[in-house]
C-alpha cells in the first residue's frame, strides 16, 4: 500500500505525497534488486542519492557564495559602527551647529627616529601647545607613544611635510562646534568618548548616535534669532555690567526655543579653558526671585477665577499688611487703582490685595498648573528644581504674588508665560524642531478669554505712557510685556539687598489678534546690573532689560515672518530706545 492509498483524513499535501511515493518506490527497487541477486545495483543507487544530495547542497553554497560576493556594500557584514560617532546638530534652517570632523592623533615611535635633537627641535616649533618636557619624555622612550591629539588637517599636513621619520598619524573623528561661543549653552558639548556632557549634546544623545554617519538632528533654534539675541544681550551687558544675563525667545504655541543666550559664555571646543561657572546654563540651571514679572500670573489668576475684572479697584494709598509682611509700592501711586493700573504701575499693594482675595490654595493650584512649582518641562537635563514656599499661607501669598519668596529658572518663567499668552494651555518647552504648525497637547490652565484679556493688559503696559514697559515698544509689532525687578537676598545682611537686583522684561509680540494666532515670547534678564548714565541711575527691569527686549523684537520679527501693522490712529514710538526721565511706572 502506498501513501496515496491512505484515507482522505490522513492525506498530506501533494508535494509530500509525491516524495513519499518516490521513497516508497525506491525502497521497492532496493528490495527487487536484492531479490534479483544484484546487491551492487542497490549500493550504486544509494551512492547516487547521496551524491545528488551533496550536489544540491554544493549548489546552494555556490549560489550563496556568488550572491554574497556580488552583494552591495550595504549587505556586507563585519563593519563595526564607531560608538563615539554622532550625527550633526543643525538649527531649524539647516545651519551647522555641531559636527564630527576628521582629526589626527600624533604618535612618535622613537625606535625609528634618526636624529633625536632635530626631531625634538622641529616638534617644539610645530606644536607650541605641547610642553617640551612631554616631547622629551616621548622621544626618550623605547616604544611608540601618544604625543598630541585633535590635530586639524592643516596641522597634520604641516607636521607631515617636515618629513621626520617616526611620526605616526592616526585618524580620529572629533566633535567640533564651528560657531564657538554662539548658543554654546544650548548646544552643549560632548566628551572625547562621544558622550554628551551638557545641553542638546547630552539631552539628545540617542537621536544623535542614531544619526551617526552624516545624519542630522535639527534643533528648534534659529541662528538668525540667536545672533540678534546674543548681540543685544551683549550690548546690555556692556552697558549695565551685570553678574550674569539671560535671553530667551520661544514660540508660545509650540514651546520651541528659538533662541537661548547666556552671559558669561564659553567655547564648547575648549570647555576647560573657561571657569566652570561660565559653563552653567543660567536659563535652565539658575533660580531667581523674579519680582514683578510674577504679577502677570497673579492678575491672570484673579481674572480667571472671577475674583477681579479689569475694572476692579484696589486701594493702594497706604501700605498693606498681609501675614508677617507690610507691603509697600516701589513708586507709591497713593491712589485707588483699577486692575489694569495695578499692572501698569506694578503696584505691590494692589497685587497683594488681589492675591489675598484669590487665596493660597487657588494661587498654589494655578502656579502648579503653570509648572512653576516643579522643574521646567524641557529636554535639557540642566533644568533646575525651583525653591517654593514650604507652606502656602498668607505670608506665601503676600510674597509670591509679586515674585518674592519663590525662586524659579528663567525657562520655568518662560513656560509659564507661554500658558498665559497662547490661549491658556501649559505646553512643555522643547529644544527639538517640531513640524511647521505643530501645537503639542498640554493641560489647560487659563481660559481663552483670560489669555485674550492678558494680551490686552500687557500691550497696554507697553503702549500706554503710564505703563512700565514703554521702552520695549517696536513699531507696528504690538509688543506687550511686564517689567520685573526682584531684590536679591543678601546673606551678609540677612535681608533683601537694596542694590543687588534681578532685573528682567517678559515680552510678547504681536499681541493683536486672537490667542490662537502666531505669537512669540522674549525674556531678557540681567542679574545684578549696574545703573548707567542713560538709565538715570536706575537698574530696574524697565530701564535695563525692556529696551534690549524691544530691540530684539524689532530685529527678529522679519525672520519670524511677523508683519508690522500700523493702526492709522495710533502713533507708534519712533524708536525702541528708552529716552527721557523715568515714567510713572516703577519699572519693577
Amino acid at each position, binding site marked *: 500500500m502506498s501513501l496515496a492509498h491512505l484515507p482522505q483524513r490522513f492525506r498530506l499535501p501533494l508535494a509530500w505525497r509525491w516524495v513519499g511515493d518516490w521513497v516508497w518506490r525506491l525502497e521497492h527497487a532496493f528490495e527487487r534488486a536484492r531479490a534479483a541477486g544484484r546487491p551492487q545495483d542497490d549500493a550504486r543507487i544509494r551512492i547516487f542519492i547521496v551524491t545528488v544530495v551533496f550536489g544540491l547542497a554544493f549548489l546552494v553554497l555556490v549560489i550563496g557564495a556568488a550572491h554574497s560576493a556580488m552583494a552591495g556594500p550595504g549587505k556586507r557584514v563585519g563593519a563595526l559602527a564607531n560608538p563615539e560617532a554622532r550625527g550633526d546638530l543643525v538649527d531649524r534652517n539647516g545651519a551647522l551647529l555641531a559636527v564630527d570632523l576628521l582629526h589626527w592623533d600624533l604618535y612618535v615611535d622613537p625606535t625609528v627616529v634618526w636624529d633625536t635633537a632635530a626631531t625634538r627641535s622641529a616638534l617644539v616649533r610645530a606644536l607650541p601647545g605641547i610642553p617640551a618636557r612631554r616631547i622629551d619624555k616621548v622621544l626618550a622612550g623605547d616604544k611608540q607613544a601618544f604625543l598630541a591629539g585633535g590635530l586639524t588637517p592643516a596641522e597634520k599636513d604641516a607636521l607631515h611635510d617636515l618629513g621626520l621619520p617616526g611620526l605616526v598619524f592616526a585618524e580620529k573623528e572629533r566633535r567640533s562646534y564651528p560657531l564657538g561661543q554662539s548658543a554654546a549653552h544650548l548646544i552643549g558639548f560632548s566628551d572625547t568618548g562621544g558622550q554628551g556632557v551638557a545641553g542638546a549634546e547630552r539631552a539628545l544623545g540617542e537621536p544623535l548616535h542614531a544619526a551617526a554617519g552624516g545624519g542630522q538632528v535639527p534643533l528648534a533654534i534659529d541662528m538668525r534669532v540667536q545672533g540678534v539675541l546674543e548681540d543685544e544681550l551683549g550690548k546690555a551687558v556692556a552697558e549695565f555690567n551685570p553678574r550674569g544675563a539671560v535671553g530667551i525667545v520661544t514660540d508660545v504655541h509650540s514651546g520651541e526655543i528659538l533662541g537661548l543666550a547666556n552671559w558669561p559664555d564659553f567655547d564648547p571646543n575648549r570647555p576647560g579653558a573657561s571657569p566652570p561657572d561660565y559653563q552653567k546654563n543660567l536659563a535652565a540651571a539658575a533660580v531667581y526671585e523674579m519680582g514683578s514679572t510674577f504679577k502677570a500670573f497673579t492678575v491672570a489668576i484673579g481674572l480667571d477665577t472671577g475674583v477681579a475684572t479689569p475694572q476692579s479697584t484696589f486701594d493702594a494709598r497706604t501700605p498693606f499688611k498681609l501675614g508677617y509682611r507690610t507691603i509697600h509700592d516701589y513708586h507709591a501711586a497713593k491712589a485707588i487703582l483699577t486692575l489694569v493700573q495695578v499692572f501698569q504701575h506694578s503696584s505691590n499693594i494692589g497685587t497683594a490685595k488681589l492675591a489675598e482675595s484669590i487665596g493660597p490654595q487657588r494661587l498654589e493650584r494655578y502656579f502648579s498648573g503653570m509648572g512653576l512649582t516643579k522643574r521646567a518641562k524641557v529636554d535639557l537635563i540642566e533644568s533646575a528644581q525651583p525653591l517654593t514656599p514650604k507652606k502656602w499661607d498668607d505670608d506665601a501669598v503676600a510674597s509670591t504674588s509679586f515674585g518674592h519668596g519663590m525662586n524659579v529658572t528663567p525657562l520655568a518663567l518662560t513656560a509659564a508665560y507661554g500658558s498665559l499668552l497662547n490661549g491658556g494651555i501649559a505646553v512643555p518647552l522643547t529644544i527639538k524642531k517640531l513640524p511647521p504648525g505643530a501645537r503639542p497637547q498640554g493641560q489647560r490652565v487659563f481660559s481663552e478669554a483670560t489669555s485674550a484679556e492678558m494680551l490686552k493688559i500687557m500691550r497696554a503696559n507697553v503702549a500706554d505712557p503710564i505703563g512700565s514697559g514703554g521702552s520695549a515698544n517696536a513699531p507696528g509689532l504690538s509688543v506687550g510685556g511686564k517689567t520685573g525687578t526682584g531684590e536679591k537676598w543678601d546673606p551678609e545682611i540677612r535681608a533683601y539687598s537694596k542694590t543687588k537686583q534681578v532685573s528682567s522684561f517678559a515680552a510678547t509680540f504681536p499681541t493683536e489678534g486672537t490667542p490662537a494666532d502666531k505669537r512669540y515670547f522674549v525674556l531678557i534678564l540681567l542679574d545684578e546690573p549696574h545703573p548707567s548714565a542713560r538709565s538715570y541711575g536706575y537698574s530696574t527691569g524697565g530701564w535695563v532689560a525692556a529696551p534690549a527686549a524691544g530691540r530684539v523684537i*524689532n530685529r527678529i520679527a522679519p525672520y519670524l515672518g511677523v508683519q508690522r501693522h500700523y493702526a492709522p490712529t495710533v502713533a507708534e514710538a519712533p524708536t525702541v530706545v528708552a529716552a527721557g526721565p523715568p515714567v510713572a511706572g516703577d519699572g519693577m
Partner: protein
Amino acid sequence: MILSSIFNRRIRGFRLVEVIALSLLLIMMLGVYFAKTSAGGERTRIDQVERQIAAEKSRIRMLDAEVAYLERPRRVGQLATLLQLEPMRADREAAPDSLSAIATRASQNPLYAAPRGKPSALAPPT
C-alpha cells in the same frame, strides 16, 4: 528500464552518469571561480569609489564647518560694526504688496520730484 540504462550506459568506458556529474561539477567550479574573480574586481573598484566618496564627504563636511565658522553671528556682527552697518530701520521694511503704494507716495513727495526746468536724471533723453 530507464533508470538502470542511465547507470549502465558507458561512453569510452566511463559511465554516462559519472561523466555528467563530473561535467556539472567542473561547470559549477568554473562558475564560482569566475563569479568570485569578477566580483572581487568589482569589489575593489567599489571600495576605491567608496573611499573617494568618503574622502569627498569628509572634505565637504570640513568646508561646511568652515563656512559655519566664518558665518558665525559674532563674526558677522563684528564685520557689520567695522563697516558701520546697522540693523535695518522699521520704516525701511516693506511687504511686496505695498511697493506700488510706496511708489505712489514717493511720486507725490516734492522731495523726490524732479527740479522744475531741469529734466529728471531718470527721464529718457530727448
